C-alpha cells in the first residue's frame, strides 16, 4: 500500500488566515497557552529571522509588526477534520495525525488521477488554493511517509529503491526516535539513518530497547503499523463568519441559502433526511443566540429548508449585529422512498409542507388536529392532537340512532339568566364522571334561543340552565 503524508508546518496560522482575503500574510507566529515561546512561525516571519522556540518578547523586538496568535487546540482539531472531509475526494482511507498531519492511502487511487505525479500535483494545487502550506511525501509505510514529510518533503517517486535511498539519507534526529536515543546515537557517531538500518536488529534491541526496534521495524515495513481511519461523523455542521456584523435579518438570506444548499447536497449524497435544524447566530459582545427550525415531516430539499428558515427568521429580532452563522443538524434519518403511486406521495408531501409552514409562523399550539374520545361527558368527548397526514382515513360512522350533538361546542357552558328556554326536544340525561372527581349530572335538551337558532341546553340538578352548544 502506498501512503501519502501531508505535513502542515504552520497549520494553526493558516487556519487563522484562511478567512481573510487572498493576499500574502504578514509575519505571524503562534504561541502556546502560556504565551511565552513560539510554536509555529510562518514563512514571512521566518524570513525575518524568527524561529520556533524563540521567546515571544525577543521575537517581538526583532520584528515589530509580528502578529502573535494564541494556539487553540479545538480549532486545530476541527480544522483537521474539515481537511479530512476535503481529502475524501482523493482517498477513501484517511487517518488524522494531530496536530498537523494527514495520512492518506493512495495506492488504489493512482489510476484515477493518472499516476503519482498527477495525483501529487493535483493535491498540491488544491491545498494551495485552500490556503495551506504543506510538505508531501510518499512511502510504502505510513511512518516512513510521515518522517519524510516532517523532514521537509519526499521525492515524488514510488520506486522502492529511490524511496529507500531518501529514507536512508535522513539525519538520525529526524527519524522519529525518542530524543535521548537520538542524542545517544549522534554521540556514537551515527549521522544518517541508513547507518542505523544496516545494523543487526537484535544488537540494536539489546542496546536501546524494544521501542526503538519497533519504531525502526515500522519504518522499514518489517512490522505492521495499523492506523485508525477517519470516519466522518453523521452530523452536519457548517459555519460562515462575516467580516462586518450583519444588523438585519434580511442580510442573512444569502448565507442561509448557501448553507441550506450545502445541507441539501450532504443529505442527498448520503440518502438522509431531517426534520430539525439548529441555527446559531454569533454576536460580537454577547452570548450567541440560537433558533431551532422544525418541520412537520422529513425534508431534504434546499428550498423547503430555506422557506422554513425565512419564516422563523422573520419573527426573530437580532439583539446585536451578527458576526457568524452556523447550521447544525444532528438528527439524521434515512430517507424512505414511498412505494405509493407518485400522485399520492406528492399530495401527502404538499399537505405536510403546508402543515410545517403554518406551524412555523403561527406556532405549534395554534395549529391543531381533532380527535374523538370515547366519553359520556360532552366536554371530554374530544381532544386536540398533533395533526398527521394519513393517507387512508377510516372513521366509524355513528350507527343509526346516536343522540344529536351540536356542531359548535362552547368552551365553558354559559348560564342562561332568563331561566328555562323554549324546549324543542329531550331530555337526555348524562350522569358520569363520579370516578375522577368531575361528576356530571345534567339533563340535556334541544332549545330554541330567543335570538334564533337551536341550542343545546342543559339543566343541572339544582335547576340552573346552561347553554353548551349550538346546532349550526
Amino acid at each position, binding site marked *: 500500500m502506498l501512503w501519502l503524508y501531508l505535513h502542515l508546518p504552520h497549520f494553526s496560522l493558516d487556519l487563522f488566515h484562511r478567512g481573510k482575503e487572498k493576499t500574502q500574510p504578514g509575519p505571524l507566529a503562534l504561541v502556546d497557552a502560556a504565551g511565552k515561546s513560539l510554536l509555529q512561525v510562518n514563512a514571512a516571519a521566518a524570513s525575518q529571522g524568527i524561529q520556533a522556540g524563540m521567546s515571544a518578547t525577543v521575537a517581538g523586538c526583532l520584528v515589530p509588526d509580528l502578529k502573535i496568535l494564541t494556539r487553540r487546540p479545538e480549532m486545530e482539531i476541527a480544522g483537521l477534520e474539515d481537511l479530512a472531509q476535503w481529502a475524501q475526494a482523493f482517498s477513501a482511507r484517511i487517518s488524522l495525525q494531530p496536530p498537523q498531519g494527514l495520512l492518506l492511502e493512495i495506492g488504489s487511487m493512482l489510476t484515477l488521477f493518472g499516476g503519482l505525479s498527477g495525483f501529487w500535483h493535483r493535491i498540491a494545487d488544491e491545498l494551495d488554493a485552500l490556503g495551506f502550506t504543506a510538505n508531501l511525501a510518499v512511502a510504502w509505510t505510513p511512518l516512513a511517509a510521515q518522517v519524510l514529510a516532517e523532514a521537509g518533503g519526499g521525492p515524488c517517486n514510488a520506486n522502492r529503491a529511490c524511496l529507500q535511498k531518501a529514507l536512508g539519507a535522513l539525519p538520525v534526529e529526524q527519524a522519529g526516535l525518542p530524543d535521548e536515543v537520538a542524542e545517544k546515537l549522534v554521540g556514537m557517531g551515527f549521522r544518517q539513518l541508513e547507518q542505523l538500518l544496516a545494523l543487526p536488529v537484535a544488537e540494536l534491541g539489546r542496546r536501546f530497547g524494544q521501542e526503538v526496534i519497533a519504531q525502526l521495524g515500522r519504518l522499514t515495513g518489517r512490522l505492521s503499523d495499523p492506523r485508525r481511519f477517519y470516519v466522518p461523523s453523521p452530523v452536519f455542521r457548517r459555519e460562515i463568519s462575516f467580516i462586518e456584523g450583519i444588523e438585519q435579518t434580511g442580510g442573512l438570506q444569502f448565507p442561509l441559502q448557501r448553507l441550506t444548499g450545502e445541507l441539501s447536497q450532504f443529505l442527498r449524497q448520503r440518502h438522509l433526511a431531517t426534520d430539525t435544524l439548529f441555527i446559531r447566530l454569533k454576536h460580537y459582545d454577547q452570548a450567541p443566540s440560537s433558533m431551532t427550525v422544525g418541520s412537520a415531516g422529513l425534508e431534504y430539499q434546499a428550498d423547503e429548508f430555506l422557506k422554513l428558515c425565512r419564516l422563523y427568521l422573520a419573527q426573530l429580532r437580532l439583539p446585536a449585529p451578527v458576526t457568524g452563522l452556523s447550521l447544525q443538524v444532528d438528527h439524521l434519518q434515512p430517507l424512505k422512498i414511498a412505494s405509493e403511486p407518485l400522485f*399520492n406521495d406528492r*399530495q*401527502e408531501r*404538499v*399537505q405536510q*409542507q*403546508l*402543515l410545517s*409552514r*403554518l406551524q412555523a*409562523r*403561527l406556532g405549534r399550539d*395554534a*395549529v*391543531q*388536529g*381533532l*380527535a*374523538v374520545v370515547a366519553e359520556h361527558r*360532552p366536554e371530554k*368527548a*374530544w381532544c*386536540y392532537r398533533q*395533526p*398527521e397526514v*394519513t*393517507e387512508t*382515513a377510516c*372513521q366509524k*360512522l*355513528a350507527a343509526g340512532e*346516536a343522540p*344529536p*350533538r*351540536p*356542531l*359548535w*361546542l*362552547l*368552551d365553558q357552558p354559559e348560564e342562561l339568566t332568563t331561566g328555562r328556554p323554549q324546549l*324543542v*326536544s329531550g331530555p337526555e340525561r348524562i350522569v358520569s364522571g363520579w370516578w375522577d372527581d368531575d361528576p356530571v349530572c345534567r339533563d340535556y335538551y*334541544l332549545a*330554541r*334561543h330567543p*335570538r*334564533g*337558532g*337551536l*341550542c343545546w341546553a342543559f339543566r343541572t340538578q339544582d335547576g340552573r340552565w346552561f347553554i353548551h*352548544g*349550538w*346546532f*349550526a
Partner: protein
Amino acid sequence: MNTEVEKLLSRAGVWRGHRQGVDPGTYPAVASGYAVLDQCLAGGGWPRGALTEILSDHCGIGELALLRPALSFLSQQPGWILWVAPPFLPYPPALAAAGILVSRVLVIQPQKPADLCWAMEQGLRSGSCSAVLGWPARLDNRAIRKLQLAAESGQCPAFLFRPQTARINASPAALRLELTPLAEGLAFRILKRRGGWPVAPQVLDRASLQLPGLPPKAQPPLASTLVTGPWTG
C-alpha cells in the same frame, strides 16, 4: 348566427341577462346538497376556486348545516379542511356524525389578524386543502381580493363568515349569501352570484336542513299490533 359571436357568447365571461346559459363545466362547483340552493347557484353548487361570503349576525343559526353535505363530500378526498379562527370548537363527535372525517380537520387559532389572512391564503394556494373556512374579525377589500385570487390559483372552495353589517360594502367575493334565522328554519338571500342577479330570500326548512328536534314522523300504527283502550279498573 355567426360562429365567432356564438363562441364569444358561450364563454363564461359573457352573461346574457335573461338566464344562465352557460354550461356547467365553466363554473366548477361542489353540490351543496340542497336543491333550492343549487338551482340558484352557477355551476349548481358552491364554487370551487372562488370565495363565498356567508353573512349572518349570530353563530349557530344553521350556517354550518348549510355547508355540511358539501364538507362531508369534500372530506372524503385527501386534503385538509382548514377552520381558521372559528368562534367555538367544531365538536368532533358531531363532525363524525355529519360524515366529516375528523382526521382531516385542522383548527387554526392565530393570535394576530394578519396571521388569519396569511393562514387562509397559504391553505388556499397550496393546493393541499379541500376546503378553507374562516371567521375574520375585520377584513378590508384588499385582503378579500387576495383570498379570492388565492382560491382561484389553488382551485379550492373558500368560505368566509362575516357579520351582516358587511352587506353594505361591495366585496370581490364570487358568491355572497345572507342568512336569517326563522322559526321554521333558515332564510337565505343571495346578494351576489356569478351569472345571475341577486335572488329574493328563500327558506330552507328545518327538515331539509336535517337539524334535529323535529318530532319523529308519525308512523301509521299497524292494526294487528295496536292495542287500544279504554281499560277499566
